[in-house]
């Protein structure tokens, strides 16, 4: 399988997971979107040297994933795909910031390493929360939630169509790639020049398809508004979900929970 095919398959798996039916899946998408946003804001608002106080936040993606029947593999694999970005963003921190901030068992830890660790922890937390959201909420529900929360309708329509046609476009690209591979022998035909031409070709095909889709929409009375028959209902349980988790995040943000637990244990021990 080519990497493109693999990618398509992976996207399909996430999409399939989102179609399941668990208490987490049944939550109103707005509740999940808002809670995830609060989560992300809280996580990124910490100071650059925070690592330990961030750890309690892991509770949110872990609880949601286990309640929603999402496997660690599903989330972990995708985290790895995005990981290089986070790994390289902070890679120079240890070199630039050499001030010693702590000593653990005689080992001097510089500020750079701490801030690098902080970046990685934040990356894992925020991206896994976003992945869990996507894996427990169908994409169109996420878009619908965003729209109800005030995102412009044009943008919502764009996102819906983007998601719908990503599969069609990727399949088209895949067929072109296959056709090229089959008629390229060794390195010939695999060069940059052909690649650029293929991209151009794909763009033109996309234009042509967009035109046909628009014609199909006009044919069925499209007037600039997509009217969806779906309705959302925000229940008391949803409100509880948002408020409960948000309160927890704010508490985690204000109180250093691991430190508190640590001193509690120490006091009990003494």
């Amino acid at each position, binding site marked *: 399988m080519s990497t493109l095919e693999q990618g398509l398959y992976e996207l399909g798996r996430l999409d399939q997971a989102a179609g399941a039916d668990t208490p987490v899946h049944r939550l109103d998408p707005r509740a999940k979107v808002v809670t995830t946003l609060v989560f992300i804001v809280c996580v990124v608002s910490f100071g650059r040297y925070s690592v330990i106080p961030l750890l309690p936040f892991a509770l949110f993606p872990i609880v949601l994933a286990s309640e929603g029947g999402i496997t660690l593999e599903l989330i972990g694999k995708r985290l790895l795909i995005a990981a290089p970005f986070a790994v390289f963003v902070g890679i120079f921190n240890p070199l630039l910031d050499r001030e010693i901030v702590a000593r653990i068992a005689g080992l001097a830890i510089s500020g750079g390493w701490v801030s690098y660790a902080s970046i990685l922890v934040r990356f894992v937390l925020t991206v896994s929360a976003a992945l869990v959201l996507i894996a427990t909420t169908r994409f169109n529900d996420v878009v619908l939630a965003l729209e109800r929360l005030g995102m412009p309708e044009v943008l919502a329509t764009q996102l819906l169509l983007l998601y*719908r*046609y990503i599969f069609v476009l990727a399949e088209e690209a895949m067929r072109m790639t296959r056709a090229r591979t089959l008629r390229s022998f060794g390195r010939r035909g695999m060069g940059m020049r052909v690649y650029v031409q293929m991209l151009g070709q794909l763009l033109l095909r996309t234009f042509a398809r967009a035109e046909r*889709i628009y014609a*199909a929409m*006009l*044919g069925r009375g499209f007037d600039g508004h997509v009217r969806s028959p779906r309705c959302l209902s925000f229940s008391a349980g949803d409100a509880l979900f948002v408020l409960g988790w948000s309160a927890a995040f704010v508490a985690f943000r204000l109180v250093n929970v691991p430190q508190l637990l640590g001193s509690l244990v120490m006091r009990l021990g003494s």
Partner: protein
Amino acid sequence: MSHHTIDVESLAFDYPDGTCALDGVSFHVGHGESIALVGANGAGKSTLLMHLNGLLSPTSGTVGIGGTPVTKGTLPDIRKTVGMVFQDPDDQLFMPTVMEDVSFGPANLGLPEVDVLRRAHDALDRVGALKLADRPPYRLSGGEKRAVSIATVLAMNPAILVMDEPSSNLDPRARRRLIELLGTFEHTKIIATHDLDLALDLCERTIVLHEGRVVADGPTREIFTDDALLEASALERPAGLRPCAVCGSAAGNSDGAD
């Protein structure tokens, strides 16, 4: 609209790049008629269909639906009357789920939500795709996609059905099922197709297009046995009208029955 008729008067169309796609096409389709539109690739079939619901505007000539001329002002009414099924279901199915896609048309007609859902439900039921309602279109097979595409149009209760290559890319059984389904529709139908056997089964009348002109217009069986005409318009006799390859029995005894 009570008269489900189509009147095309000396219709001509040039694409912006100068290609002349239609060159003086005229015909009349009566209420409840079922017409096959055949012709080689590039004969102008799709271009002609696009004029029937105003997706293209003629360079010259006129198109009338049920006595109403197709103009900018009448477009909303025309599109309510003429339901068009495109060749590639992926172009037709643009919403996230089958149900939403089928509801798209009725919702745009401004119907109350209950009616929208009922119509979508009925249309899906009609094509036998009710169980697919919550699936995203990219998870359907070719035959399922085609059935749903037809449902999206049926949900708008059109008086006239226009179809571009409805049987392309279907396996034999899906094709047979499609033909049976289309046979149950009482709409006025125009079907552009290369599948001459399908035309033979469904359409009593055939219009042959060649290089943007109508070269023949008459009973399907007569046209498909006119070898000189077929040859001149780059077509071939359908299998159902050829002598049997195995036993050599005479042509034309098939009435479309398998």
